[in-house]
C-alpha cells in the first residue's frame, strides 16, 4: 500500500479553476465589413446566425464583445484564428 506523500493542495485546485476563466475579446475595427465579422463568428465558432449577428452588433455598438471563454490555451488558439481572419482580438482574464 502506498502512502500519499502529498496532501491534495486545495489552494492550487482553486487557482486551477480560476485559471480557466479567460476570455477571447474581439474589438471593433471600422475596416471590417459587418457581414464578414458575423460570417467569421458563425463559421469559426459554429454560432447560430442569430448569435453571430448579436455578437457582431455588440462589437459594432459597444466596441468589443467576449466571443468565447475558457482555458487560456484554448483562448490563445481562438485569438490566433481571429488574427488569421484579420479581426482585432485580445485575451482577457475573465471575471469568475
Amino acid at each position, binding site marked *: 500500500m502506498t502512502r500519499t506523500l502529498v496532501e491534495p493542495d486545495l489552494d492550487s485546485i482553486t487557482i486551477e479553476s480560476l485559471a480557466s476563466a479567460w476570455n477571447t475579446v474581439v474589438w471593433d475595427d471600422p*475596416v471590417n465589413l459587418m457581414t*464578414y465579422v458575423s*460570417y467569421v463568428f458563425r463559421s469559426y465558432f459554429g454560432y447560430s446566425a442569430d448569435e453571430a449577428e448579436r455578437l457582431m452588433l455588440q462589437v459594432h455598438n459597444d466596441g468589443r464583445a467576449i466571443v468565447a471563454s475558457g482555458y487560456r490555451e484554448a483562448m*490563445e488558439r481562438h485569438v*490566433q484564428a481571429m*488574427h*488569421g481572419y484579420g*479581426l*482585432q482580438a*485580445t485575451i482577457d482574464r475573465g471575471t469568475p
Partner: protein
Amino acid sequence: MIIASRSSTAGVSLRFQAAEAALLSDLADQVDSMLLLGSPDDPALARLLPNAYPDDAEAQRDYARYTRSSLIESKRAAAQQVRDATAPVGERVSTRSDASAAVIPDGDADAADADVVVELDESDAWVWLTFLTDLRLILNERVGAIEESTPEQDQRDDYLSAAYDWAGYLQGSMLEVLDPTDK
C-alpha cells in the same frame, strides 16, 4: 465591374475585367512582399498581427513567438493564391486544380483583354475573404500616412482609397453569394 455569382459547387464564381484582375494581382503581390520584407515597426503590419495581450508585455512576447511565423505564412499563402489566380495571361500559375482561373475567350478580343473568371469553392473563398480583409487593413493604414500634401501624394491617396473601396465591394459581393441568409 466585378460580377460575383453562385458557383456550381458550394462556393462563388468571380468575373473580372482584365484590368481589374491585373490590379488585384499586383496588390496581392505587394501584400505578399510586405509580409515578407515589412519592418516590424510598420503600423500596417501591426494591424495584421495585433497584440493579443495589450496589458502584459511578457505574455505578448510569448504569444508572438509562437504565432507570428505561422500567421505570416498563412497570410502570405493567401496573397500568393489570389496573385496567381488573377495574374495576367502568360504569368498565371495555376496553384490548385480545383481553383484554377480560366480565361473566357471573348470574340475577337485578344486573350489579354478577356474577362478573367475565378471559380472558388468554400475553402478557397475563405482564403480570398481573409486576403481582402488584410488588404483593406493595409490600405486603410496607408491612406493619408504621409501628411505632406502634394499633388503626387493626393493622387496616391486617391488611388489607395479607390482600391480600398473596390476590395470592400468585392468582399461584400462575395459575402452576398456565400452568406445570403445574412441579409
